[in-house]
């Protein structure tokens, strides 16, 4: 018996699946399962995070409900996955954030945006807040650069620390020996697997969402979201280098690298999350962990808000709306940063670690 009822159910299903193995060619979960005959909590959390929820094994399974064996791997692993986020959260005192995650994310986002608006209003004259600012340093007339850099660096570093501590606990629990390192080759392969969402494809035809007709829509919208996020991150990084190395202050002209990267990234972060939200809304309920709807939508909404406020800021940066929009954008990004370790963002981190582990296992099995 395991610590939770969902892990007991995941154990039951993996026992069923391990004596069947028809789904072996669909993704990484089933080959990883076949390397085991019994499943620890860590094994099950590993398999849960390895699952990309493409739904193919449900549609293909002769034992899925209404069959009495009641095999529903995508849903069971989705619940187990969400529970694993709380189980590995650092510090553990904050794991409760996952319980009502949609509410927590909404409150943090609202407070963060409100704090920036109030802060801007309190620290600036009305004329400055609603003024038109043009040219280098325009943003910093509303919030000094050093204050902005210090605040966001602190939030970002805290998020990194919490994520590293969480994934360390996960990495140990999924069966790597203490001190066991991920080798470069495995990490490189896992980056490729994650980068192309290799296992979100139903074994080749696409993933299942609202019915039994596979499509690649979720993969496409996830790519837009993920690469949009990366482009925005790259835009910020380039801008930071401009600021400190070249002494060039934001805002930059539309053709300059930070703006180009940010524009494309922002569009990805608007279109991608909308697509994912629509797909989520249409997804067959039997494939969904419905109790985590708030967590999923909360994260999608945060990315969307970040993209939307960013793009609006770009379009309207030479108007009187720039001040309030900057406050909203900074509020959204700040909330995104500090909630990263306590929301759906972690799915990517754990899944990546699981993919690294899977590549390692495959290689050591092939070598033995």
């Amino acid at each position: 018996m395991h610590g939770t009822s969902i892990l007991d159910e995941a154990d039951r299903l993996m026992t069923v699946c391990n004596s069947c193995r028809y789904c072996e060619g669909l993704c990484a979960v089933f080959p990883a399962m076949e390397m085991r005959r019994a499943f620890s909590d860590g094994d099950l959390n590993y398999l849960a995070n390895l699952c990309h929820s493409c739904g193919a094994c449900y549609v293909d399974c002769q034992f899925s409900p209404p069959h009495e064996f009641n095999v529903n791997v995508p849903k069971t692993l989705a619940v187990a996955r969400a529970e694993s986020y709380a189980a590995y959260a650092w510090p553990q005192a904050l794991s409760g954030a996952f319980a009502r995650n949609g509410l927590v994310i909404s409150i943090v986002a609202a407070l963060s945006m409100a704090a920036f608006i109030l802060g801007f209003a309190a620290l600036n004259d009305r004329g400055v807040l609603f003024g038109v600012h043009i040219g280098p340093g325009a943003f910093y007339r509303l919030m000094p650069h050093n204050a902005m850099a210090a605040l966001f660096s602190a939030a970002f570093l805290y998020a990194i620390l919490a994520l590293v501590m969480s994934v360390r606990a996960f990495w140990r629990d999924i069966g790597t020996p203490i001190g066991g390192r991920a080798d470069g080759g495995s990490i490189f392969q896992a980056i490729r697997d994650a980068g192309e969402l290799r296992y979100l494809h139903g074994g080749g035809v696409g993933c299942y969402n609202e019915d039994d007709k596979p499509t690649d829509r979720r993969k496409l919208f996830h790519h837009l979201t993920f690469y949009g996020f990366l482009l925005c991150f790259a835009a910020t990084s380039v801008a930071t280098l401009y600021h400190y190395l070249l002494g060039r202050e934001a805002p930059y002209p539309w053709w300059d690298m930070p703006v180009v990267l940010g524009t494309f990234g922002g569009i990805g972060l608007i279109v991608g999350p909308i697509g994912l939200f629509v797909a989520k809304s249409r997804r067959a309920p039997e494939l969904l962990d419905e109790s985590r709807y708030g967590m999923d939508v909360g994260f999608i909404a945060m990315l969307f808000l970040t993209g939307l406020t960013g793009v609006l800021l770009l379009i309207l940066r030479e108007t009187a709306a720039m001040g309030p929009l900057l406050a909203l954008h900074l509020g959204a990004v700040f909330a995104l940063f500090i909630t990263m370790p306590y929301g759906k963002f972690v799915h990517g981190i754990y899944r990546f670690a699981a993919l690294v582990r899977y590549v390692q296992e495959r290689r050591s099995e092939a070598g033995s």
Partner: protein
Amino acid sequence: MSSKYDVLVIGGGNAALCAAIAARRGGASVLVLEGAPKFYRGGNTRHTRNMRCAHDAATEILTGPYTEEEFWEDLLRVTGGQTDEELARHMIRESKDILNWIVEQGVRWQPSLGGTLSLGRTNSFFLGGGRAMLNALYLTAERLGVDVEYDAEVTDLVIEDGMFLAARLKRPIKGETEIRATSLVAAAGGFEANIEWLKQYWGEAADNFLIRGTPYNRGSILKMLLDKGVQEVGDPTQCHAVAIDARAPKFDGGIITRHDSVVFGIVVNKHAQRFYDEGEDIWPKRYAIWGRLVAAQPDQIAYIIFDSTVVTSFMPTLFPPIAGQTIAELAGKLELDPAALEKTITEFNAAVRPGTFDHTILDDCVTEGITPPKTHWARRIETPPYLAYPVRPGITFTYLGTRVTKEARMLMADGKPSGNMFAAGEIMAGNVLGKGYAAGMGMTIGSVFGRIAGREAAKHARN
């Protein structure tokens, strides 16, 4: 619903869908009547995983060539010659093309699954298993414009002078309780889920049989056809039966209830007595005799008994083994006489000669001086915990069917071919398989004759 279809397909598995697709591609309007609800569509195809097709060279997923001649020799061996050579050779020849044709219908292949290496050269596995294969065929059929109705039980067939006229339905479909069609393809499986029918040959013992596949294969279409003058083929008392876990559900437990552990231990009946040589031959060649062997034991129950040293030698099982620290404790849990089981195991252990164990070959680990002997892989059962799986006969499919020609056209009792009735799949498998079985052959029969039946039925309807 139009008043008359070119081709009516009764059944919803591999054979039925191949027929429907081939008929539709041949220009016919096609209706498929599947008696089961949508989830259970496809009969036993849901539980399959591969198909045996001849091929002259290795492919991406097959490790080497499997010639027509080799396929024929395998078929001859497993059936002991009880096959229709002309029909069988025709099927084997056509199977070569099926490897590609079925992919064109949306089915995807994958290399042989873990634990099935012995089939890697001969059998092509469906990516995602039999239900994935079915899903692909249904999507293709619907895309082509084939009409499909579920929960569509046929209660009667109107047949005159060997000509199919109409099928009567239990539940009206769009107001109609009678469907007329120019051609009929019967692809509705065997009768293995019809316990009353099985009892005609097996008596009350059939009450203790478990049915590995769909509860919907009750043989009603087969019976109607035979009653209305179609010639029968195959031994009605024959069925494919393996030993499956006695804790499995009555129907539809599928492949996961099987046991591959017989060669690693001994098998006893309810009196704790051994009754057959557990080490007669390599397991894949012998697994299919154990259903019949257990069916012949009192109360149709037996127990595979082994010890803790071999638990990882076979595939993980759905139901865990029953365990005891002593033979007596295990016997108690199995409700066997402890003294009798202890005696059987003590005598067996004493009869085991030294040898070098290797389950992949016919090794030299044998018993001496007991009856029945264990002629390979005999090792003492002496390391607790002692473990057991209870097993019962698990019926896979039946052999009784309708006789057909190479065009999959049914033959009437008087020897004349039917004007417009065709059959494919398990309902006519007895033409090729008089007895015995080799993995993946049922699907070959289904796809090859399904495609032929659909093509010929469309040709008839379009003439």
